């Protein structure tokens, strides 16, 4: 999946690093370059690998997206300029997938980050067996998507799934999780949330531990409850971290692929009988690897990349405006 990996790394690079220090005056630059040449030598391997496995596929994907070509004739095909892009924008499959990606993204990212914040807050107290809880929390992240999704697909099974058996036991109707639009998207969001909550919680926890204890002491002396402390001390101090997790989760949400693919259970790429949970990632895979129209798939990959750029850009602008407002 060179196309997907190309976009994720590029996107990560494209995100401006927070609080970049100002460079000193220009004349010193040449001397610094020579003085630090070993530093550059040490980072060179990364950039070589990056160029070979990210930059090159990334640019190549752009080139392919301008052609009408198939997977087995990837170097050939007919140059058609931006026609693939026009077709994509006119395609109802694209808009359906974009809509699904957005709704599944909201359904998974919002609860995920809220729960992670709460969990991190709880784990920040001096609990017995803290290390155990922290390790357990990270377990889902260490589980392979395939294994996790297969288990969840069994849970959400219509005829023999555990959840439906439970629903029936308490007198409720069975739900055909895969067939419904909302139910299938909720099921997929649950898988994503399960997998990433612990990861985000650990990031929050690390940030929380760098909040000076005096702030909490001062708040306590002022008579602030634990909840008020969370609201007025913890959250504001975590703002850059929250922004970071929002950006990372959003990028992940735009690229959501493995979960909907495996949720179907039989390897089909249509994302449900009416495409009710086909994400952009799945659409790209269907175009390129089921229908073998690699030019179209490359176009979708680039569309996804541009969407990520816009989202990251908006986030960066919001972050900058806020920090300027505070200054």
């Amino acid at each position, binding site marked *: 999946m060179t196309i997907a990996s190309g976009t994720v790394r590029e996107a990560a*690079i494209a995100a401006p690093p927070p609080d970049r220090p100002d460079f000193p005056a220009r004349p010193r630059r040449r001397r610094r*370059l020579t003085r630090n040449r070993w530093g*550059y030598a040490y*980072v*060179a391997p990364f*950039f*070589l690998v*990056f*160029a*070979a*496995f990210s*930059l*090159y596929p990334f*640019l190549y994907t752009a080139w392919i997206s301008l052609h*009408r070509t*198939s*997977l*087995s*004739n*990837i*170097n050939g095909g007919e140059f058609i300029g931006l026609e*693939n892009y026009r*077709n994509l924008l006119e*395609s*109802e*499959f694209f808009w359906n997938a974009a809509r699904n990606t957005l709704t599944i993204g909201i359904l998974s990212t919002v609860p995920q980050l809220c729960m992670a914040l709460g969990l991190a807050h709880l784990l920040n107290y001096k609990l017995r067996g803290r290390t155990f809880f922290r390790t357990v929390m990270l377990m889902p992240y260490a589980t392979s998507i395939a294994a996790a999704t*297969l288990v969840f*697909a*069994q849970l959400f*099974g*219509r*005829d*023999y799934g555990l959840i439906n058996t439970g629903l029936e036991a308490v007198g409720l109707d069975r739900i*055909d999780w*895969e*067939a*419904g639009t909302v139910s299938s998207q909720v099921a997929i969001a649950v898988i994503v949330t399960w997998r990433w909550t612990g990861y985000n919680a650990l990031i929050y926890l690390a940030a929380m531990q760098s909040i000076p204890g005096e702030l909490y002491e001062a708040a306590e002396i002022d008579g602030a409850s634990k909840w008020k402390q969370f609201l007025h001390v913890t959250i504001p101090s975590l703002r850059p971290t929250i922004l970071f997790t929002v950006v990372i989760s959003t990028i992940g949400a735009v690229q959501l692929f493995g979960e909907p693919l495996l949720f*179907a*259970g*039989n*390897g*089909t790429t*249509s994302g449900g*009988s*009416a495409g009710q949970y086909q994400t952009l990632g799945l659409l790209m895979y269907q*175009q390129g*690897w*089921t*229908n*073998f*129209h690699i*030019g*179209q798939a490359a176009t979708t990959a680039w569309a996804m990349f541009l969407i990520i750029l816009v989202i990251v850009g908006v986030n960066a602008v919001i972050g900058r405006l806020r920090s300027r407002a505070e200054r």
Partner: protein
Amino acid sequence: MSRSTRGKAVFGAALAAALLTAGCGSDDSSAAAADYDPDAPVTLTVGTFGTMDFDNAGLYEEYMALHPNVTIEQNNVAQSAAYYKSLQTRLAANSGLDDIQALEIGFIADVVRNHADAFVDWSQEENADELEGNFYDWKWGQATTSDGATIALGTDTGPQAMCYRKDLFQEAGLPTDRAEVAELWPTWDAYLDAARQYQSTSDAAFVDSPASIFSSSVYQGEVAYNDEDGNPIPGESEGVERAWGYASQAAEEGLTANLSQFGDEWNAAFSNGAFATIACPAWMLGYINSQMGDSGAGLWDIAPLPGAAEGASNWGGSFLGVPADGPNVEAAKDLVEWLTAPEQQVKMFTEAAHFPSSEQAAEDPGVQDAVNEYFSGAPTGAIFGESAANIRRTPIGPYDTQIQEAFTTGLTDIATRGTSPDQAFEDALKAAEQAIGG
């Protein structure tokens, strides 16, 4: 990125590109046929998918015993779709191909149309007429280009019948004897009537999925997904229209278990007795057996496919091709000829239930008289033999798999989301056109 790192990155990209091209262009031309020494030690790789069973039927061992200088290595990929994806990229790079590549009916048309040059042309062999005589004409035709080049030899086929659960039929008051069952559904309309009768008395569904009806009846007409020239015509095909009519009725009336074939729930439904009939290409017998294990022995029986008197139908089957640029082309050709010869096809049926693509093999007493004890002693050789003999040569095309998936997905939509058949057909057609176009 600062200027100097960007420079490095560009340099790196150029380097990577150079390395990649060097890596891809290193194919030596094949050893000329004149230099071929049949006794020289050689290792042949065979790329296969799913359960092709050459190994399980003991054919590799037998060949290596006959030719001690030959070592055979099989590279098997579980799913044919995944296998085809990697074959496509290897054909594109003309690198990494095995000495022998298996080709499934779902993508043979694409290979015939777009990659015929990459494979050995069997019609140019000295014994081409003899080879052609080994196979059903439709099987030979499926691997032949419009210019007459035949790029692969047939292995098995998927002549169809209808498997049914005797125990469930009995409970529902339907006949269980296979001759009486055959009379129960001479046509698909009669089959749907039987389904209605069955469901009025039983909790279980009559058929596993609307796809079972669609995928088997679509090939009974003159044309399925393509016109005579192999160009896709999903919207105008009389076969599609007929099959869609039957299958969408079953889906709309709830006569099916609403399952997606080859999904997890479908697999689980076999042993849960969730359906009473399923369209059975010869290879489905092995699938049922593996899903149900010993507990299913004697529960199933086999009757002819509805509408069999008008037209038999074929679902699935494979071929073996020899990439023309490989280093061991001559040795690979010998192995493929041997593996696909009628005698070996008989063994494939008796050992592993793969129905032959060779008329001689199908008429061999070893096949003709074969019975399957697991399926209540059904005379599988005779049932599938008759079906295979009546198969018409329906033109196949490069997008058959995708088009079929579009229609069966549409049928699932009727069954599980209550979409109207007309709307579902329209959606399926759009999905099919998306797969074809571009």
